[in-house]
């Protein structure tokens, strides 16, 4: 009897711990949502309408779910890049700019790279590859500045991001770059639509949902990242450099290369996200097309605590939140600022519960 009681007791403790780990963040999120709804009520909108609009926009239809997942894909890619660089103790806050660079490169390749006449595979892949390369260059530049001049990557990735956003603006303003030919005074400052051959194949018939193969690419990227971080020697070296660069150098590791490559990879993931946004749903480049995905992806990466699964879960959560938020804005006239406030509350709730759980564990 007594020999059986001990393992059973241990199991119960472990189960309780698991439950707590789930209950605390969920409870905190629920509390944040309640506060959010209170704010909506205070602002004079109908809470019932807001909830209905949110549910409609996030999960209301196959189309809504597909759109939410597509959003999650972009967020997940940026988040995966973030945790890669973060393994080397590098904080990449330039996701937004890396998306922008990826979008520019993918659009340019799709429009002017002669991919329209290629078979489906290369026609889709080449613009994506261009997006990766451009994003990697943008991230890698921050890495180079760090190892060469000691520039803090938080500053350099952020400022390079602003440059990239303005480059998007420039490239859709100038007809010498990517702006569509001006046929009338009402021609918008946007690129031409990319050829159909370069558009991502849909996973379901498009009139049912906009879900495209970006989802599959994202899952592959997540598996790649998980393996790289937990099973590869490269991942271990990133960790060593991040924890103690001097010891890593003494142990013969190419520290500069590791640091640059970590940021370049983060950038490549951001660029890929940008390419997928253009090729999957938007089909043409316009100013501000990245609309904050880089920053939301950063939050996803931060909240994931370095786990690829965590990134996927967080990205889905934020993807649905974003869809629901947009719907609340349109359908229930909830001010856009208020949906951002609610998002912020949820981030604080989740991050706070993570810290709380860590404290409980160490006690």
């Amino acid at each position, binding site marked *: 009897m007594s020999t059986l009681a001990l393992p059973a007791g241990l199991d119960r403790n472990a189960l309780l711990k698991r439950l707590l780990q789930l209950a605390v963040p969920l409870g905190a999120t629920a509390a944040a949502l309640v506060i959010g709804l209170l704010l909506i009520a205070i602002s004079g909108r109908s809470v019932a309408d807001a909830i209905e609009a949110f549910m409609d926009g996030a999960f209301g239809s196959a189309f809504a779910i597909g759109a939410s997942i597509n959003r999650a894909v972009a967020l997940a890619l940026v988040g995966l890049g973030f945790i890669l660089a973060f393994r080397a103790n590098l904080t990449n806050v330039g996701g937004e700019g890396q998306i922008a660079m990826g979008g520019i490169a993918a659009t340019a390749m799709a429009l002017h790279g002669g991919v329209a006449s290629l078979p489906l595979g290369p026609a889709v892949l080449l613009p994506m590859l261009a997006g990766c390369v451009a994003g990697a260059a943008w991230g890698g530049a921050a890495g180079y500045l760090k190892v060469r001049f000691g520039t803090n990557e938080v500053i350099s990735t952020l400022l390079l991001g602003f440059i990239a956003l303005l480059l998007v603006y420039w490239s859709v303003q100038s007809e010498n770059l990517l702006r569509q030919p001006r046929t009338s005074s009402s021609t918008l400052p946007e690129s031409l639509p990319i050829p159909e051959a370069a558009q991502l194949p849909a996973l379901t018939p498009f009139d049912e949902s906009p879900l495209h193969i970006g989802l599959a690419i994202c899952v592959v990227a997540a598996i790649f990242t998980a393996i790289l971080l937990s*099973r590869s020697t490269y991942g271990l070296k990133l960790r060593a450099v991040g924890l*103690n660069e001097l010891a890593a150098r003494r*142990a013969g590791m190419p520290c500069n290369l590791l640091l640059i490559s970590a940021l370049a990879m983060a950038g490549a993931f951001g660029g890929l996200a940008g390419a997928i946004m253009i090729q999957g749903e938007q089909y043409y480049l316009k100013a501000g097309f990245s609309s904050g995905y880089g920053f939301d992806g950063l939050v996803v990466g931060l909240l994931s605590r370095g786990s690829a699964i965590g990134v996927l879960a967080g990205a889905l959560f934020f993807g649905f939140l974003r869809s629901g938020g947009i719907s609340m804005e349109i359908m229930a006239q909830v001010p856009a600022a208020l949906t951002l406030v609610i998002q912020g509350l949820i981030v604080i709730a989740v991050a706070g519960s993570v810290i709380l759980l860590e404290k409980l564990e160490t006690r």
Partner: protein
Amino acid sequence: MGAAADITIDTARAAEGRPLLALEGVSKRFGKLQALSEISLDFKAGEVHCLLGENGAGKSTLCNLIFGSHAPDTGLMRFQGREWSPSGPAEALQSGIAMVHQHFSVVPRMSVVENLMLGQARGRLRHREQAALIRAMTAKFGLDVNPDAIVGELSVGERQRVEIVKCLMREPRLLVLDEPTAVLPPEEIGALLDIVRRVADDGRAVILVTHKLAEIAKVADRVSVLRGGKLVTSLPMQGTQMGDLVRAMVGREVTSLESALASSLAGIARAEKQGDGPHKYALVCDGITVRDAGGAVRLDNFTLEIAPGEVVGLAGVEGNGQTELGRVLAGLSPPTSGRFFIGEAEMTHASAAQITAQGAGIVPEDRHAVACVTGMSLAENIFLNKLGQFTRFGLLNRTALTEAAKGLMQDYDVRAAGPEIAFGSLSGGNQQKAVLGRELTLDPLVFLLAAQPTRGLDIGAVEAVYRQIRLAASRGVGVLLISSELDELIAASDRILVLYRGKVVGEKPARPDQREAIGALMSGHA
């Protein structure tokens, strides 16, 4: 010696006083480790109370409880008659308890004066007055500290002196020193012990943590021995035999360090100097000169040849160029001028990776900053420079890594719960044995640099470290042994060079009868 005479006079007086600080049944547990159990001790004003014990015996924990860094789980402390349960070090400092830690709490980018003003200065900063105060204080206690020096540019030993001055400036009732002499050279240890004596004679209580018996004999009024978190004994120093203390500390009979070390090492065969190995020299340094950022010469025209199988000791007070030499040989910063060769291959501007590949094992003086990644596992640290051996198609074979780590742990007597344990949780001795094992298993291995390899290690670990170094030498590895522990150098080296202010000021054979001559060279009396 004058200091020794003072002690006996004071012992009697101090014994009469009421305790300044009393511990009653104090216990502390960290996770599974019972760090302290049921400790009851009195600390009296005017008394130098030595805490003796091997690494992990609970000495540091006890200090941290007194200083308020941790709170005891059970038991009671009384300070100046009142219950003492400090909320933290800040309260301890305010109440008159100051502590010199093993790890320094100074801001490297600030000057000595600025560091000493931190947390003390109110309103306007009085730079010049403060500097004058420091000069007066350092002169009084014989602590050689330049108030205007930038702390980050000081050697470890100099930095510790800043710490000590910082504490003394607070005029504490109780001064706690956690292994303060571990980084000090012989003649400064004497000066420090004199200060300790003076502080106690001034009516203050001093707690001195150490595992060096010689210091205890010189300065202690009372000695308490801890072992495995328990108080083994607490005796007045007068009439106590050293042998009894050693037995209490290690729980078995041992001879003194020197003779133990010497006899342990004597059993290891010395290598044939004219061996038919592939190299004529393990290391050749040709006029290495290092200037710091300010242009001051830190290492001056350092020239040395080490034959395979030879152990050359480099004696010297810390801060006389050893750190700079270590960095050059490790491939962390090239010399300003001069060249060096490992096994006849020039490595002057080579990277750390190239130097390792050429067969140079490096045990750096700053273990935590250079030798290991404390946040990673023991196995990962053991193979930090050989990860390629366990990599296939970019993936790390963790099973093989763990198995190999177990083998090395056995070979080098690294005691830990397992290879997956965090490196930072190991004791200093086991960390050092792991680092040494890693460097000694390089293939090829031509040369080994061991810089301050026994700092902070207990007697057992010290012996193991030198044993491994001598064994490597007997296999034909040339060794450069940098240390400020003269006794250890004499026991483990073949010949000894003395470094003073960046220059080699002399060379002596490594014999006990040369001890005084070498000591004189170290302190600049040529």
